[in-house]
């Protein structure tokens, strides 16, 4: 039996993997930066928590409610802001994340405000978390290997060319954004039902930034990279926890170091697969062979 600490970490990793999967679709594949996905996570968390506690909805229903609300808000926000480019869009999402936080704090009658929302039933168990995380990644992976994933990629690489071959770039940006909001909302629901207590601060801009950092460090256009990076970056501060005050220092340095050492992120443009590993090994062998020839 795993220790509760290990279980807790695995659950946290799973929850983060779900949220990061959404961001990976959005940032890694579609090339849009969002600093507001923690806001969607907050929506999912609060909606599902309120559904569970106030309306006594079953776990599954409350999760779905959270996902739906995130999707609807994501759709509306996307409609409004997806015409903006690059960092302009980024700021709009960042603002959204902030607004969600402020609104939760402000409407404290419903949400508990800064006092937080407590007594959420603990429903997210280890197995549920693992199964749902694997399921989410599988869904995302299958999407990526279909025309949807291709169209996301086309938007990221070359919008003009994408349009020229008949891809409605706005629609696919919208789709990626709503998907990422749904994944975030889903993660939020699981989060609420694991920690049993939520406060707006848990979903601040740092959390959003962390998702984005995770995806970029994992490498663009690589779902497996995002997942690996999510595991690494969630566990890294835990590894450093015993270093007490040096912990975040090492964490920051580790992020910079990874980017310097691996110029396209951990897995940039590649998926972890047997084929890829075989190819890498062959390439390595080839490289050493050619070196030998030279000397």
């Amino acid at each position, binding site marked *: 039996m795993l220790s509760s600490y290990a279980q807790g970490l695995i659950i946290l990793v799973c929850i983060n993997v779900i949220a990061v999967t959404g961001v990976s679709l959005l940032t890694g594949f579609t090339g849009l930066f969002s600093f507001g996905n923690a806001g969607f996570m907050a929506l999912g968390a609060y909606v599902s928590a309120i559904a569970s506690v106030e309306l006594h909805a079953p776990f599954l229903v409350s999760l779905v409610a959270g996902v739906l609300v995130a999707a609807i808000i994501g759709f509306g926000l996307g409609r409004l802001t997806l015409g903006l480019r690059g960092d302009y869009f980024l700021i709009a999402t960042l603002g959204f994340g902030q607004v969600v936080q402020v609104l939760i704090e402000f409407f404290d009658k419903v949400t508990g405000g800064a006092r937080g929302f407590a007594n959420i039933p603990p429903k997210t168990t280890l197995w549920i978390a693992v199964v749902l995380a694997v399921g989410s990644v599988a869904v995302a992976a299958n999407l990526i290997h*279909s025309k949807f994933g*291709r169209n996301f990629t086309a938007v990221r*690489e070359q919008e003009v*060319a994408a349009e*020229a071959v008949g891809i409605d770039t706005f629609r696919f940006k919208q789709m990626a954004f709503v998907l990422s909001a749904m994944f975030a909302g889903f993660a939020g629901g699981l989060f609420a039902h694991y920690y049993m207590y939520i406060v707006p601060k848990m979903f601040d801009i740092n959390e959003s930034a962390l998702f984005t950092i995770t995806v970029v460090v994992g490498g663009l256009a690589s779902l497996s990279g995002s997942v690996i990076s999510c595991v690494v970056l969630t566990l890294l501060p835990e590894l450093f926890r015993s270093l007490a005050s040096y912990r975040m220092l090492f964490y920051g340095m580790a992020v910079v170091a990874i980017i310097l050492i691996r110029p396209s992120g951990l897995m940039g443009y590649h998926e972890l697969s047997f084929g890829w590993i075989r190819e890498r090994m062959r390439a390595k062998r080839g490289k050493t062979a050619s070196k030998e020839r030279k000397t």
Partner: protein
Amino acid sequence: MNSILSIKGLGKKFGGVCAVDEFSLELEQGTIHGLIGPNGAGKTTIFNLMTGIYHPTAGTMALRGTNLVGLGSYRIAQLGIGRTFQNIRLFTQLSVIDNVVMASGVDATYGMVDAIFKTRRYQRDEAKIRKRARELLDLLGLGGVSDERAGALPYGSQRKLEIARALAARPVLLLLDEPAAGMNEEESMELVGFIRDVRKRFDLTVLLIEHHMSVVMEICDRITVLDFGKTICNGIPKEVQANRSVIDAYLGETTDREN
């Protein structure tokens, strides 16, 4: 006469510059039409207007009776106008074959649920798309480099890849913007053969911008010559080549095509 494209009185101004002025064109189904003229005459701008990248300041355009003015780029592409870009616009980070597959949206009829569960329909469509992509690459002689990164191809091959990609979207009208740029004579002539070939095979109509006169004269059924946004000549290659104002503005006195 079976007109596929009809443009009337098209105009585009950039600030004070009138890049396209009163441009009209009727394209007959199945023809190859040349669009030539000095640099800056407005040829690419016409392509950009036709494909919705720019919006005209005057005029009408219709593809088989469907109005094109005001439509989004992707919509026009879906209606059947495919194009290549003068400044190459490939998905440079992706492999050559993925560039083609990327454009095969029309062949993917499945929905999101099919994709998530990898249904038979999904598998059938995907297999078809891959197969066709490979065929198109073979057709252009890019079969051997299908797994290379598109950005790593030499310039000439990138141009060919652009054509393959445009074809993948199953256009009825293909706009080629200087496809032979960066190709030598032999490669250009190969290209000529190839354009003829695909026109027949896919029942295409082609509108071609090109400065390689050997290509233009060889392949075009008719030619329109632009200068400063205005049409100065319109006719079959022989007529155009002999036209005084075309020589003055575009060809120059010594067309030393020695071969």
